[in-house]
């Protein structure tokens, strides 16, 4: 069925109960929705088994008319998955197993007694927090790009429409000129969420104004692309948006295509995201069925369709000219700019690239207005930013926060601090292109400029927390090893420079560091930044330069004292057994892969240092805190 603009409204009205229940305002509704998170994190934790158990128990108690089970995309609170949220009353259940479900269904939905032991608790002995909105992880967030996360069934377009979807597309196609759309996006202050933060409206305008010679019967004249090749290790914002709310992306792209004058778009999605790909293809089909993509969208003169292209695994594709090369079936090597893609992109035609999160913001700006959007955030960074908060942090997950919030609020208030009572050391933003921010700068507001000042970048939104057990020299080595591996090899500063930096860092972590190494790294890093061809090389030294800037003492300890303060670098540590604590339980000896631990049962054990491979197995299996690392 091809829709007309008025049909959007009628689908919305027909499904009014969906928005009433999911928004929590549907107290008058007689039905209850159980929202089961089916994002990659929860699915890996067997949330689909939890779902099956819920359905079975609900049928057993004959509740199926009153209680519906709905699968949603990523809820965000990945650390505590599998998650089920009860709507409209907002009860939040976590860490569920299929075995919990019979009791849960009977108590909550038959006896009317919510089950406290399956609720979130801030700390072990504290009282549970029953409502999702009151849990600190959620209460400090502000959702725009993720507005529908966890409340919409990503596989049902009607639900997306019920929650306000495709209204913005209808509005631009019937009420706004292309110029007005671009003005609105410009006025909103939206900047690219993929890393560099270029103003989106301006970028669109360049592409719209680019002149093309359209030959008769030739291919489309302009293209738009969605970069969903999330290459940052430790970041999963885009995957989550595609999995939880794919139509938001499609709607944003259709609006952009209208404004720019493109009739075809591509979504270049990372190959390691099978679930996201599946949901995306499904969403595309549904949108085409409804005439929201394809010829004469919503019965207007505007035609636009999207092709999905699966990435083949290359970090450099995050760079827009490389991505275009890859789409064209070539090696993804960056090109010299100018010309920019807005003049000469895919197949030499004007092309506009934005990432998933940027596109997903667009429908909300159209619906609620530039003024509303620009009221959120700081002077130069408007709106919100999605981060994947991971590493040594209690509440691992996906968070969307207003620009200008401090790092401290994200790590400690939303993230719940560091696990195991350990001390915070650094937070890394921007992935391999970003830097490590130390405790002294935790009150830095999160906006494009402040992060650059701190030596890092906003990046696409990876935020990796590190504690006292992480060695910053080793972390720098890790990132340079990554970019060295991913360098496409086209320009020598990046190809050779990262390789030399890696050699120096490997020497330092192997205890072979020399005086002058730090200065050498600084000099090489600066040169690579200034001379590399593309963003990958321009930013590759950042993790090294920031760790030198903020953790120079750790570098010095490695080089001068041949000591790794965090006790990570193998060449600089030894494992020994403390006779005072050793009970002679034999666990270490049994598990040692090279059999270099000797000792009789109930006698103190000893590690033969000549044979020890420093794998740390003894340390991890000892229950008596008897293995020492020095």
């Amino acid at each position, binding site marked *: 069925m091809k829709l007309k603009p008025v049909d959007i409204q009628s689908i919305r009205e027909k499904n009014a109960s969906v928005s009433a229940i999911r928004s929590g305002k549907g107290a008058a509704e007689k039905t209850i929705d159980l929202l089961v998170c089916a994002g990659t*994190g929860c699915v890996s934790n067997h949330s689909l088994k939890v779902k099956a158990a819920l359905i079975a128990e609900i049928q057993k108690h004959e509740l199926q008319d009153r209680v519906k089970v709905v699968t949603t995309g990523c809820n965000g609170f990945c650390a505590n998955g599998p998650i089920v949220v009860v709507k409209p009353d907002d009860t939040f259940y976590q860490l569920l197993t299929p075995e919990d479900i019979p009791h849960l269904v009977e108590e909550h939905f038959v006896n009317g007694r919510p089950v406290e032991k399956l609720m979130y608790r801030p700390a072990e002995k504290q009282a549970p927090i029953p409502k999702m909105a009151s849990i600190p992880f959620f209460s400090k967030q502000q959702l725009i790009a993720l507005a529908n996360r966890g409340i919409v069934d990503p596989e049902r377009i009607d639900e997306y429409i019920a929650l306000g979807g495709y209204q913005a597309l209808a509005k631009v196609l019937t009420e706004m000129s292309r110029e007005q759309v671009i003005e609105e996006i410009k006025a909103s202050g939206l900047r690219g969420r993929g890393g560099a933060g270029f103003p989106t409206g301006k970028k669109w305008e360049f592409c719209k104004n680019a002149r093309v010679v359209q030959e008769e019967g030739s291919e489309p004249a302009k293209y738009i692309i969605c970069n969903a090749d999330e290459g940052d290790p*430790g970041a999963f914002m885009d*995957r989550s948006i595609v999995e939880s709310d794919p139509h938001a992306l499609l709607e944003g792209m259709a609006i952009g295509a209208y404004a720019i004058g493109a009739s075809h778009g591509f979504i270049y999605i990372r190959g390691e995201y099978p679930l996201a790909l599946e949901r995306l293809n499904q969403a595309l089909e549904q949108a085409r069925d409804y005439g929201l993509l394809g010829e004469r969208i919503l019965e207007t003169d505007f035609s636009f369709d999207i092709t999905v292209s699966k990435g083949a695994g290359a970090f450099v594709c995050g760079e827009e000219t490389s991505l275009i090369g890859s789409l064209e*079936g070539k090696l993804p090597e960056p090109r010299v700019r100018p010309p920019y893609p807005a003049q000469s992109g895919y197949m030499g035609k004007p092309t506009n690239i934005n990432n998933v999160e940027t596109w997903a913001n667009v429908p909300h700006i159209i619906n609620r207005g530039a003024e509303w959007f620009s009221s959120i955030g700081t002077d130069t960074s408007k709106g919100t930013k999605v981060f994947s908060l*991971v*590493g040594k942090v209690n509440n*691992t997950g996906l968070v969307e926060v207003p620009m200008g919030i401090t790092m401290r609020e994200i790590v400690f208030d939303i993230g719940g601090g560091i696990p195991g009572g350990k001390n915070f050391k650094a937070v890394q933003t921007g992935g391999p292109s970003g830097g490590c921010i130390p405790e002294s700068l935790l009150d830095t507001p999160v906006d494009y400029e402040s992060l650059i000042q701190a030596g890092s970048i906003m990046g696409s939104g990876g935020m990796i927390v*590190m504690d006292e057990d992480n060695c910053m020299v080793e972390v720098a080595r890790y990132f340079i090893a990554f970019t060295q591996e991913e360098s496409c090899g086209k320009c020598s500063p990046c190809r050779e420079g990262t390789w030399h930096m890696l050699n120096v860092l490997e020497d330092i972590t192997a205890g072979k560091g020399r005086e002058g190494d730090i200065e050498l790294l600084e000099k090489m890093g600066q040169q690579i930044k200034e001379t590399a061809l593309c963003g990958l090389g321009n930013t590759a030294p950042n993790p090294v330069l920031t760790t030198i800037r903020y953790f120079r003492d750790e570098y010095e300890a490695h080089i001068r004292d041949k000591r790794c303060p965090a006790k990570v670098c193998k060449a600089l540590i030894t494992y020994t057994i403390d006779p005072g604590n050793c009970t002679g339980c034999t666990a270490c000896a049994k598990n040692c892969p090279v059999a270099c631990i000797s000792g009789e049962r109930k006698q103190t054990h000893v590690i033969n240092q000549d044979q020890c491979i420093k794998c740390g197995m003894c340390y991890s299996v000892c229950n008596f805190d008897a293995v020492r690392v020095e």
Partner: protein
Amino acid sequence: MAVEVTEKLQSIVERYRGGKSSLIGVMQDISQEYGYLPEEVLKEVAGRIEVPISIFYSLATFYSSFRLEPIGKKHVCACVGTACHVRGAAKIVETLERDLQIEAGETSKDGNYTLETVNCVGACALGPLVTVNGEYYGKMDQKKISRLVKSLRQEISENP
């Protein structure tokens, strides 16, 4: 190995000729069909679409998702994304290499195991994480890994 020119192979070629897929798409289609990029298949396709095989080789060795060797029965992937790394992924990889007696990137001679590292599977809350034939095993430590390898060996010995 003689290549059977299956209908599937023909349709891969057709899709490319019709402008519906790129060279990378062709290679992804072949990988999907055969599990890797067999040399004979590449030669056959290269001939049919008139693209030098060197171009295929260059693409196959650039992108990380292509492989030129068949994959082992148990495809073990250790995530080494940053979130897993700061939680000790390096130790997980070492343990896997030791227990499986192959280096990351290799397939065991008997064709039973392939060990690879992946830059992030996006399930960071479960780190350190490994996947075996697409199934996720989260919150790993050295001991759990050794146990996992043992159970894989068990499965292989039961279904050789």
